[in-house]
Structures are given as structure tokens and as C-alpha cells.
């Protein structure tokens, strides 16, 4: 290796070893200018377009999540509101847990109708009170054996619905408290859509108010008989003269008597 080559190599090596920048080098300023040149569009773009596709995907995901949460919240509100309504409606209702309010069974042909049953049927036939209008028309339903349909309580106003059970030998009429809405619900054919209507109804749904009225009438008559027996004159024996149902039933009973 000649002196020239050794000299060149020595100079090259010495210059390559200079890593530290000179004092007059403004590194930060050059970097800022370089950044301005490298990313010029990013500073001019608004925030929505600055992040590119990422921010759009995030916004779309946020909107989707909002809709999902909103939908769930709406459904929850609807569900909770409905359950609260049911709770309020059931507050004053005496619930018979195992015994269905209305039991619909297949009519037995050799069913013997007792006088009690006949009385109820007659009362239903002549009932003209508004409460009676709420009751469904007497229909004869024929369904599968042991098929039971219960009427849910929806509205808060309590009513009493008579439960009529068809027992082959001695049919009994039971009274159970039920909200008035059940009457309206009972009117709806959807609740009884599973039954088939026949020309002759075998079971009746009797409004409890009618039974109460009937009891009142009986009590009034008893009081009247007692007063007559003792020689008293009874004034306003009818406790609730404004009750059309009671008065109509009373008139009917008087006619019958």
C-alpha cells in the first residue's frame, strides 16, 4: 500500500469517526421543516379526516353501540314499565294461584243442572247492567280435557269474576276477585281463541258484581220480610238504588217471586 492510499484511508477513517454534529447545526429546526414537508396534509385536514379510516370505523362503531344500548334500554323500559303496570294492577287483586279463574271444560251431555246453576244462567240472561255488558256472551266451549285458561290481571281496578267449574254431578259456582279489565280481556276473543264456539253455551262467566248484587237483594228481601213480620215499615231498603244491576235483578227476582 502506497503512502497515498494509506493517507486516503486514514482521512476516510477519521472523517467517518466524526459522529457528533458540529455546533452550528440546528438539528431541531431542520427536523421541524422536515416534518412539515413529510406530513403536510395531516395538518391541513380536519379532525375527522386526520385519522383516516380509523376514526370513521370508531365513529361507526360508536353509533352502532349507541343504537344497541338505546334499543336495549328502550326494551328494558318497556319490559319494566309493563311489569310495573302488572304489579300495580295486581296490587288489589286476590290471586288464586292454582285454581284457574275460568275453567273451560268439555260439556258433559249427561250433566245435571242444579237449581243454583239454573239461577245463574237466568241471571246472566236478564242482566242489563254495564258490568254485565263486559261479560262475554254465553258461549259453549269445547276444548280438550284439562285445558285451562287463566285471565291475566292488567288494569288496577279490582273486580270479582265468578268461576264456574263444570263438575259432572254437582257443578259449583265459585267467586274469585279479579280486576275489571279481566272482563274486558275476557270479551276479547283472542284469549279464548283456542275454544270452539257452539250454539248452546255450557259454562258462563259471571261478573262478581252481579253475585254481590244478588246477595244484596237477598239481604234486602230478608230485611224486608223481617220488617214486615215485625210490623216495621222499611224505607230505602235498597242500599244502592243507583245500581242498575241491583235494581234490574231485583225487578227480575220480584217478577219471579
Amino acid at each position, binding site marked *: 500500500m502506497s503512502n497515498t492510499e494509506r*493517507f486516503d484511508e486514514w*482521512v476516510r477513517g*477519521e472523517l467517518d469517526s*466524526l459522529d457528533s454534529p458540529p455546533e452550528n447545526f440546528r438539528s431541531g429546526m431542520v*427536523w421541524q421543516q422536515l416534518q412539515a414537508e*413529510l406530513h403536510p396534509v395531516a395538518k391541513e385536514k380536519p379532525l375527522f379526516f386526520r385519522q383516516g379510516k380509523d376514526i370513521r370505523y370508531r365513529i361507526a362503531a360508536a353509533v352502532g353501540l349507541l343504537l344497541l344500548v338505546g334499543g336495549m334500554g328502550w326494551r328494558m323500559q318497556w319490559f319494566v314499565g309493563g311489569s310495573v303496570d302488572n304489579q300495580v294492577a295486581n296490587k288489589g287483586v286476590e290471586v288464586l294461584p292454582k285454581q284457574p279463574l275460568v275453567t273451560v271444560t268439555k260439556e258433559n251431555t249427561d250433566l245435571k243442572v242444579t237449581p243454583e246453576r239454573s239461577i245463574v244462567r237466568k241471571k246472566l240472561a236478564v242482566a242489563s247492567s254495564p258490568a254485565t255488558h263486559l261479560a262475554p256472551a254465553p258461549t259453549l266451549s269445547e276444548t280438550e280435557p284439562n285445558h285451562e285458561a287463566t285471565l291475566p290481571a292488567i288494569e288496577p281496578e279490582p273486580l270479582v269474576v265468578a268461576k264456574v267449574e263444570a263438575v259432572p254431578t254437582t257443578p259449583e259456582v265459585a267467586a274469585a276477585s279479579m280486576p275489571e279489565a279481566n272482563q274486558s280481556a275476557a270479551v276479547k276473543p283472542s284469549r279464548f281463541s283456542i275454544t270452539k264456539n257452539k250454539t248452546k253455551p255450557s259454562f258462563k262467566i259471571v261478573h262478581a258484581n252481579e253475585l254481590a248484587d244478588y246477595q244484596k237483594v237477598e239481604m234486602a228481601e230478608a230485611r224486608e220480610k223481617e220488617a214486615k213480620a215485625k210490623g216495621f215499615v222499611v224505607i230505602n231498603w235498597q242500599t244502592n238504588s243507583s245500581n242498575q244491576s241491583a235494581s234490574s235483578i231485583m225487578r227480575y227476582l220480584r217478577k219471579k217471586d
Partner: protein
Amino acid sequence: MYRWQKVVEMCKENNRFAQNRLYEGFAGRLFRLCMRYVRHSQDAEEVLMNGFLKFFKGLPDFEYRDDNSLEVWLKRIMVNESLMHLRQQKALPVFADTDEADSAYQIEPPDASIEAEAIYAALLELPAGYRMVFNLYVVEGFKHEEIAQQLNINVGTSKSQLSKARAMLQQLLKQRGYEQYGTI
């Protein structure tokens, strides 16, 4: 895994932090390189910025092999930018066509006690023509044919400029106290 491989890959994804790290890693050395050609610090900064800009924009086409290839490519970009800057400024030196032999000047073996900063300072004092050919041939490793093509001069002119540059550099170092270099 090489030192700069991950940084280069992140720079290809336009990662600012990786770009800053690569800039900080090479800026000082490349600034000195630019200073050896354009001499003025402001011009060197401009050349350096343009060179890095070209580097980052052309990085997707760059095939990383090792750290040395990365540095060679960066130096090549800076040299080209420096020459382009001089052309645009019409600051390229005017070379006299001479065919003096390279052996016209006797070069003595180097002294290890000479500091690199002294060599760098002496190199900056060389005339533009001498300095440019010396840088291209000795430091960057170009051949005389390539230098002649780059500077649009003859090969003989490149060789004579190089011989004169070496002799003058030795003279400058001698003036700075390094007596062992003797006279040319």
C-alpha cells in the same frame, strides 16, 4: 436483527417516531458530509432536509440488507443533493483541464495523533474544486470516471484535482502544527 431494521420498517409505515429516531441517528454525520460540499451551514441544512425528504419518500422502494447499506444509501442521497444544490446555485467550481500525474506530489504516511476534527477543518479550507474531487474520491469512494461524469470534467482533470487536494491538505495540516508531513 440489525440496529436500524425495525426503524426502517416503521419509517416505511410513515411512523413519525421512527423517522425522528433515524433522523437523530444520522443527521449529525450527514450534516458534516453536506458541509464538506456546500461549506455553508444554512445551505448544508437545506441540503440535509431535502436529502432526508427524498430518503423517506423513497423508502418504500428501499430494500434493507444491513445497517451499512442504509448508511451508504443515505450518504449517496446527500452527495447527490449537495451536487444538485451547487448546480442550482451555479456554485460548481471551474476546473482547469490539466493532466498532471497523481504521483507529482509525494504523500507521507499519516500521523495517528492528528485529530479528526483537525482533518475536517482543514478539509473545509480546501478550494471548492479540490475539496469536491477529494471528497468524492477519498471519502465517498467514487472512481475518477464517475467523478468526471458527475462534475462534467475529464478523468485527467479529476486525477490532477485529487493530487493537488492531497498536497494542499497536507500543507494545511503542517501549518496547524503537524510537522512530520514535511513539504510537498
